[in-house]
């Protein structure tokens, strides 16, 4: 069984590669290897994956950073949240029926 470019793209995008039989994996790899279009498409998807992995680390740094240039809650919002949480803490939980 040989794959068309559409089927190759489908398998690569859905990431169901692991569910394929060994023979199907081989024919898919072979297709990607010999087909310039699928090879290029696959490399671009992989490049986006690299990008997303690096971004995940960058995002974590940004989330942790207290640099005032980064987005942060305004004073009024902070007060509102404090009050809301204070009220919630002081409200006894409703009995469950």
């Amino acid at each position, binding site marked *: 069984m040989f794959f068309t470019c559409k089927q190759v793209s489908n398998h690569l995008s859905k990431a169901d590669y692991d569910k394929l039989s060994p023979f199907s994996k081989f024919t898919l790899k072979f297709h990607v290897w010999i087909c310039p279009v699928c090879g290029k498409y696959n490399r671009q998807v992989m490049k986006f994956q690299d990008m997303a992995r690096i*971004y995940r680390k960058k995002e974590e740094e940004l989330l942790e950073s*207290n640099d005032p240039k980064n987005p942060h809650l305004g004073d009024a919002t902070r007060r509102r949240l404090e009050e809301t949480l204070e009220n919630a803490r002081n409200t006894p939980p409703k009995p469950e029926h």
Partner: protein
Amino acid sequence: MPETDPHEKYETHLWVEKYGDYLYRFALMRLRDPQVAEDTVQETFLAALKNLHQFDGRVDVKYWLRGILRNKTVDYVRKSVRRQELQDEQVQEVVGQLLFKTSGIPTTRPKDWAFDPDAAFAQEEFWEAFQTCLKGLPDQMRLAFYMKMVEEKDTEEICKELDITDNYLWVTLHRARGQLKTCLESKWSAS
């Protein structure tokens, strides 16, 4: 031994001060709208207080709160996108029309990058451009990209959480990558 009050144990009175900005930034990256991000953070704190008795302390409070917030962002997007815009048969049609001929041969060849991605990755400014481009995607598309590419979740799990089919996710991710590429090329190649 008397049981410790969980509010004291987990310092719930300090949550806004300690985790407020962190959670707000997390929500803002996924939801874009500052008001929605603030509301989602508030909902997260309230849900966490309500379920504090279930928290076993095995992970840091911050990451527990972030997990709740992450699920809230997914809920928000799933509800805000009233329903899947296209039915599965239509998605198949779109896939066929946009990407492939009936024979399964692609209608267009992927274009080369207009810049060298590996060289760009080393520059901090590139990541600012990347974040701007990511924020420019529609909510559902951005979240699908986050879940699949950043969080590396399984297709099945993403489809369940966003209530979409795998073909719909496929088209969404294909479009997300296309839009990101165009945006990055316009922002980065021009600089």
